């Protein structure tokens, strides 16, 4: 089946070459990071996780969001999702590959990475995160591939793909829950120490993941002969609508609790993000942009006329994808570290090299995604033709 990937139009190859160039640039910068250490990043003693871990967290959400097409199709026999289920599964594969790469580029000693397996530590949440992330990646690759192959051969998928699909559902919830537990189980970080963190992560995941999928559907429709179907996209947009409202609601709960209880250790972080803290306001404009994008996106999706507008829908989805990215990518990690446990304020911004490596990781994910989507759309074209 992989042979499909090496036959493509000029645009296809231009896109591939572009991605490879971005990967190449990032690889060169990574060699510098590998040789000289994480000093090339904007991270510090006080803000010890930055852009890499932030994007990791966001992409775990995108990966988990894939389950929003799997559940309706496999559990509720929702036929309209038949065509896009594979897209959801392959999106999860691409996102998970980026997640794992982000973890690797964040390590101070990447060559010792396998110590996590050599000295398994079941008390560490990272141990479980490794298990669920790799498990979910494996499940999606196997299921996606087998089902697509069966479709190409016009036979029923082999029987054992079904139980694997069912297994992948708790895994999807699991990856984002465990990722939230990485943060919310830490005693000294008031911003993360909240039971609603995992639900909030899931809500933002179920908004950002399907919203991104809708955008991908538009791209597929434009560049291939495969039509994912307007009905499917409409249903997806309703899922995004509910999820983004839940996400905003959870955030509101958070804001109420910290401000009404007025406990300094918890309030300081949200104060820093929304209004600035002791004169440090770097993230304030970002956070309000994020809230505006997510809020407006929710309104656009709530009103049927706007949701049904084929030109507006991808714009709305982009607003939600970007809003959730700022919220989780910039706010969630920096917000937890500022102020520090000693209430010092050290702000964080990624450096140029850090952004270059980040873009290269994204390019790698998109390369995988492009190839997988090319397979999927081509097979579906063949079958119909």
């Amino acid at each position, binding site marked *: 089946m992989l042979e499909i990937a090496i036959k493509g139009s000029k645009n296809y190859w231009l896109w591939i070459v572009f991605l490879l160039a971005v990967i190449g640039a990032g690889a060169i910068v990574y060699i510098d990071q590998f040789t000289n250490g994480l000093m090339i990043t904007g991270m510090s003693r*006080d803000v010890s996780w930055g852009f890499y871990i932030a994007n990791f967290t966001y992409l775990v959400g995108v990966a988990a969001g894939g389950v929003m097409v799997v559940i309706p199709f496999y559990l509720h026999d929702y036929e309209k999702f038949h065509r896009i289920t594979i897209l959801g599964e392959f999106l999860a594969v691409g996102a998970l590959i980026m997640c794992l790469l982000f973890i690797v580029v964040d390590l*101070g*000693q990447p060559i010792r990475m396998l*110590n996590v397996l050599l000295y398994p530590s079941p008390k560490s949440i990272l141990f479980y995160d490794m298990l669920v992330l790799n498990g979910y990646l494996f499940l999606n690759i196997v299921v996606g591939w087998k089902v697509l192959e069966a479709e190409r051969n016009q036979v029923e998928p082999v029987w054992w793909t079904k139980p694997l699909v069912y297994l992948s559902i708790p895994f999807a919830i699991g990856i984002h829950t465990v990722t939230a537990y990485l943060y919310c189980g830490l005693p000294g*970080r008031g911003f993360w120490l909240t039971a609603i963190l995992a639900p909030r992560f899931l809500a933002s995941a179920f908004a950002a993941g399907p919203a991104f999928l809708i955008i991908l559907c538009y791209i597929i429709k434009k560049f291939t002969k495969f039509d994912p179907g307007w009905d499917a996209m409409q249903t997806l947009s309703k899922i995004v609508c509910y999820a983004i409202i839940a996400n905003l609601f959870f955030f509101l709960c958070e804001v109420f609790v910290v401000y009404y209880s007025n406990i300094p250790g918890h309030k300081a972080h949200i104060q820093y993000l929304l209004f600035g803290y002791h004169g440090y306001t770097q993230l304030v404009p970002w956070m309000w942009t994020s809230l505006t994008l997510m809020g407006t996106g929710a309104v656009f999706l709530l009103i049927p006329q706007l949701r049904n507008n084929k030109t507006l829908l991808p714009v709305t989805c982009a607003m939600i994808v970007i809003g959730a990215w700022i919220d989780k990518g910039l706010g969630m990690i920096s917000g937890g570290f500022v102020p520090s*446990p000693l209430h010092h304020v050290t702000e964080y911004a990624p450096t140029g090299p850090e952004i270059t490596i980040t873009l290269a990781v994204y390019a790698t994910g998109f390369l995988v995604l492009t190839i997988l989507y090319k397979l999927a759309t081509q097979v579906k074209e063949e079958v119909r033709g």
Partner: protein
Amino acid sequence: MMKKSKRSFLKVAGIAAIGLGAFPAIHFASSDSHGTAHAVKSPNEGALLAHRWGMVIDTNKITDEVAENIVTACHKAHNVPDFNFEVDEEKYPNTRPVNHKQEVKWIWEEGFHYAFPDKEDEFLAERFHDLPFLVTCNHCKNAPCVKACPTGATFKREDGIVLMDFHRCIGCRFCMAACPYGSRSFNFRDPRPFIEETDLKFPTRSKGVVEKCNLCAERLTKGEQPHCVEASEGAIVVGDLEDPESEIRVLLNEHYTIRRKQSLGTEPSVYYIM
């Protein structure tokens, strides 16, 4: 004060000696019954031992000068890089400029409100405002960093000291996120150009690993007091928290002490006499 500490030191050493006397016999017996030659782990002769190590810092005795001496003694002996140090260009050509936010520190001075942010008080006695408070790893009984570490590179010894294996650490920095006291530092770069004089009795670290105070485990095992204790002019005492007779328990009995962020349940082993 000095007399007392000498007496308790002798007491500890005495107990240690008795323990050491018994150890070889026990190991001999056990190895005999198994019939295999196990590597025997036994403390050095004269090592300072405890059931749970703790530290008491008498804040009344810490002046700026004493605090500085303590920090310098610790950092020099443990090859902690000093980012203010002018790098030897011949030995380390093309060293890039430092980012002071990425510094490494094991023990350092903080103001009261930073050392004890949960004890913020508008009307705090004025003398506390200017006092330097030394902060370091608390060697918590329930250490969040030990739980967080995915490789066991950070671990807790039976005697309560939280130690690090610099060769196992993968540099994920989960422990830094987990520590509620900001006691951990990451080597964002190779620290060696910033070490004025390498102390060969302690390893230097490579880039990409986390480090922190080790309560001078390498000295306790030789029967020596930690560097901070030696440099503190009697302001810092370490000893066995679980021995009611120990000097630090006597101090805890006689003075009002506080610990950092007690409400988190981490059970820090560093006490401050107020």
